[in-house]
């Protein structure tokens, strides 16, 4: 009697893990929305820059240019956030519901399904927050006017600090895990190619 009560209770509370599915759905939906936002931004940037050649005044061109660079960086930042949201959704699903079997042999799975633990999820969120903050700093800096040498000095101090924080976030994630490579397979491939060439010689 007691055993079956325990069993029922345990299987009941174990069902609570299905609630993670809401997080998976919401995170994927938010990812799609962020892709949309970044795409709209990109559309407006392109639209605004189409008449760049017809701007004859140097100063006007300079301000348009600074603005454009800011928006382009912002667009890229938006896409990054969207990708992180996608990785987040897949990671939650793989960690707490079940592994995604169909994706196992896909080429992109090394990078899309790269979440190993809850800490990993958290650190990814942290890193993307740092990136957005840095982009924010960049945007503010690009539209600011500097009046004297002290301003310039302070600006360089700010740049060093941002560089330091970038270093810290990278270092934190890179210290215990293998270094992030864009495509580890390519390295193996080039290695094999080189060996083949040596053999034919």
């Amino acid at each position, binding site marked *: 009697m007691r055993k079956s009560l*325990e069993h029922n209770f*345990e*299987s009941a*509370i*174990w069902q*609570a*893990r299905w*609630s*993670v599915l809401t*997080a998976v*759905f*919401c*995170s994927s*939906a*938010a990812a799609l*929305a962020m892709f949309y*936002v970044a795409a709209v*931004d990109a559309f*407006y940037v392109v639209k605004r820059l189409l008449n760049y050649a017809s701007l004859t005044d140097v100063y006007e061109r300079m301000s348009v240019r600074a603005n454009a660079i800011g928006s382009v960086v*912002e667009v890229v930042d*938006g896409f990054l*956030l969207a990708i992180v*949201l996608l990785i987040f959704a897949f990671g*939650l699903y793989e960690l*707490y519901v*079940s592994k995604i079997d169909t994706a*196992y042999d896909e080429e992109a799975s*090394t990078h899309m*399904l*790269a*979440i*190993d*633990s809850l*800490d990993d999820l*958290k*650190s990814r*969120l*942290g890193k993307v*927050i*740092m990136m*957005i*903050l840095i982009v*924010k*700093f960049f945007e*503010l*800096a690009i539209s*600011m006017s500097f009046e004297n040498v002290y301003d310039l000095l*302070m600006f360089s*101090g*700010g*740049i060093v*600090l*941002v560089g330091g924080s970038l270093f*810290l*976030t990278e*270092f*934190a*994630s890179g*210290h*215990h895990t293998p270094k992030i490579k864009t495509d580890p397979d390519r390295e193996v491939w080039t290695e094999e190619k080189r060996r083949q060439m040596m053999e034919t010689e």
Partner: protein
Amino acid sequence: MKIKQSKLEYLFEHSLWQLRWSVLIAVIASLFTALIMFYVAAVDTFYVLEMITTEYAQEANMLDRKELRGAAVGHVVEVIDGFLLAVVLLIFGYGIYELYISRMDGPENHEAADHLLKVENLDDLKARLGKVVLMILIVKFFEISMTMEYEGVKELTIFAVAIGLIALSFFMAEYAARKSGQLKTRSSDRQRRKESLKEINND
């Protein structure tokens, strides 16, 4: 020699030991708060999506769009943070149950058990809570900084100092949290398979 135990002592110890069932309250409450947090974050997501889909493309004015965008990004990060909190509450509930009541026998071999049932002691519970609180604080900082107005180079520099401090605390938390050999998902499987393939090739 057998130590004699008086009837009174036995009764007292027995009733004292029954107190541990009160932990069940914590388990159930923790699971319910987890469900509610999932619900809250889902509602947040719905409103962010609604805002983005109805307003964003129509807003042709660049400055207005920028403001809208900042708000959207802030909310999205907040949503993710809410989901993280909910998952931690779920792990917390299961952890308390396993530590103080009984092992969960059924799901032991389940795929997700590695990650949902991995609290090892009380310190582990505390560390988890600490880390999630830190993350929420960082998100709070992020939200405030996104909506703040900055004027002049001095404020810009102060902003950079604040970013540096956040990076430092993030670094410290990360450094404390990461242990090697925690790999347990597909990516680690893949790595293991690659390594075994390499070994076969070497032979």
